[in-house]
């Protein structure tokens, strides 16, 4: 876990892929080429990336209504996600799921769960299976600050704790649950402070600093893998976009948005890479082009894919 081994450039590529993927989604959505609603992850890319950089394809991930970033970081093919958003039969859920339920079990990501907090006890069960089946797999469960006020959070964390399950709980505290600011819903400073209520370690980390996230997540994932039980990690971050589709964000101040825009994790990492001599402007431009090509391809794939048959609705109930 020493910084010298940190795959910073890979993480940059992942973060940029997530960012460009979502910007494209937003554009396509505004154009009416993607139906439904979207919860974008723009601004929080360092969290998914720093955590998932430690995961093997056979490790598990449980996600939320805001899952695109998690999916890309865990290795779900962007084209399969894009096709799902386009409601095409080639989508990662065969167009049964949609934006809020993307996933691909072949790379360890279950369909995302859009009931806030409901993935938390499920992750405990996944961890239980990983252990009982004699593997050293780990389950990572992402959720927002808002989710920490659900009963499911409480029951799930306690069960993971008492049974020392190999689960890492990652709370992405982006300061808002939809329009609700954190202090309106909590009388405490940090979600991670709740870990003590379960006898579980809790850590707060700057969620816009991918190196910091990587460090903290690595320790927690190691602990889990070695049978030492779960951790609650709180990543302080901010979404640099609306809660869902055309949210005007009038519940946030201009100053706050500007202050956080200055902490955007992607330029911040770009600087670090250059500082450390791990990349030049040219490297970064090359990555940018690579990512654009990937996303162009994903969109082309999605557009060319056939829609499902109406009667496909009847399949896959059991």
């Amino acid at each position, binding site marked *: 876990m020493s910084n010298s081994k940190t795959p910073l450039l890979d993480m940059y590529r992942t973060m940029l892929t997530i960012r460009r993927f979502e910007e494209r989604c937003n554009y396509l959505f505004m154009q009416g080429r993607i139906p439904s*609603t979207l919860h974008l992850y723009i601004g929080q890319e360092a969290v998914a990336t720093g955590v998932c950089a430690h995961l093997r394809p056979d490790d598990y991930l449980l996600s939320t209504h805001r899952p695109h970033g998690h999916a890309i970081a865990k290795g779900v093919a962007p084209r399969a996600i894009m096709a799902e958003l386009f409601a095409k039969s080639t989508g990662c*859920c065969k167009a*049964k799921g949609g934006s809020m*339920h993307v996933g691909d079990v072949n790379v360890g990501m279950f369909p995302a769960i859009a*009931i806030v907090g409901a993935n938390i006890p499920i992750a405990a069960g996944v961890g239980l299976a990983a252990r009982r089946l004699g593997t050293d797999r780990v389950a990572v469960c992402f959720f927002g600050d808002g989710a920490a*006020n659900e*009963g499911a959070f409480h029951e799930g964390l306690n069960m993971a704790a008492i049974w020392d399950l190999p689960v890492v709980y990652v709370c992405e505290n982006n300061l808002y649950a*939809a329009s609700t600011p954190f202090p309106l819903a909590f009388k405490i400073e940090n979600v991670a402070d709740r870990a003590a209520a379960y006898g579980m370690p809790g850590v707060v980390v700057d969620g816009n600093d991918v190196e910091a996230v990587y460090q903290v997540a690595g320790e927690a994932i190691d602990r889990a893998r070695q049978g030492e039980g779960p951790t609650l990690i709180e990543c302080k971050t901010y979404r640099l976009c609306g809660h869902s589709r055309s949210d005007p964000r009038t519940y946030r101040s201009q100053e706050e948005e500007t202050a956080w825009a200055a902490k955007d994790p992607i330029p911040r990492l770009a600087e670090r890479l250059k500082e450390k001599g791990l990349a030049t402007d040219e490297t970064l431009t090359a990555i940018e082009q690579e990512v654009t090509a990937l996303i162009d391809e994903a969109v082309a794939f999605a557009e060319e894919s056939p829609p499902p048959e*109406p009667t496909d609705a009847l399949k896959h109930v059991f």
Partner: protein
Amino acid sequence: MAKMSIAEALRQAIREEMARDPRVFCLGEDIGIKGGFGGAFTVTLGLSDEFGHERILDTPISEIGIAGVAIGAAMAGLRPIADVQYGDFLFCMMDQLANQAAKMTYMSGGTVKVPMVMRAPVGATGRGAQHAQSLEAFFTHIPGLKVLAPSTAYDAKGLLKSAVRDDNPVLIFEHKLLYGSKGPRSERGALSPIGEVPDEEYLVPIGKGVIRREGTDVTIVGKLLTVYRALAAAEELAQDGIETEVIDPRTLVPLDKELILESVRKTGRLVIVEEDNLTGGWAADIAAIVAEEAFFWLDAPIKRVSAPDTPAPFAPVMEQFYVPGEERVVEAVKSLF
């Protein structure tokens, strides 16, 4: 008479009841934040400016807590109007509604009342399986709850006002495609019926259905969105000379059973249309009532037109197949002749 959407009518009802009775207050997620949404479908938009944040109470994402607080507040003298952002989340508070709110009066031997309202948007709108369900059938099956399903602005306002004044827990199901919510919270494919609403105060009594269209050959019972599907089907059927009576019960519990039975006694044929899944749906109950109480007047089998027994699919093409459309209603009616 003013013309307004259902979202506006509901807002007006809340505003009037809150002005009338200081015990009335709203609670829910994202309902009153300054600069926020006014709830998932704008119903409470602006109300915190008028009434303050104590009475338009923003909650954490805690559905058990929202229901529990509403129940406790109602037991101790307030008259809460709570809401969930999507009806699907009622399952998160199911124990509070089914085991607590519904049973408190009974378990207390009638000495405790729970005058609370719970509002819940229903219907499939392209968001996938966890934001799409029609929940009415579950709640009509819980004695101790009243269940409303307004399909017009007039009824939405009048029924919500009655619900606030009722001494029992009342659930109101509102269809997302009927709200007519505006701005960023508007819905694609919405029907958004704009209705006439009297300027003077009025109530719509709980337990009274209405005939939305008179007819002699077949009775169609619908609710919420499917009232409109039924009316559209009736238009089409009229061209084939079939005169359809369309009934909108408006209140599911208590049900205006007689209105339905009378209609069937007249027409001899019954089709029930709902957006919910077939097995165990509300339509089954209507069919069972008629098969028992108007059996000898029936000239043909009772037909249910419902969603199939699957979760709601995401892709619009599949969702359109899933949600019963006008054509399926027409076909069902024709099969009875």
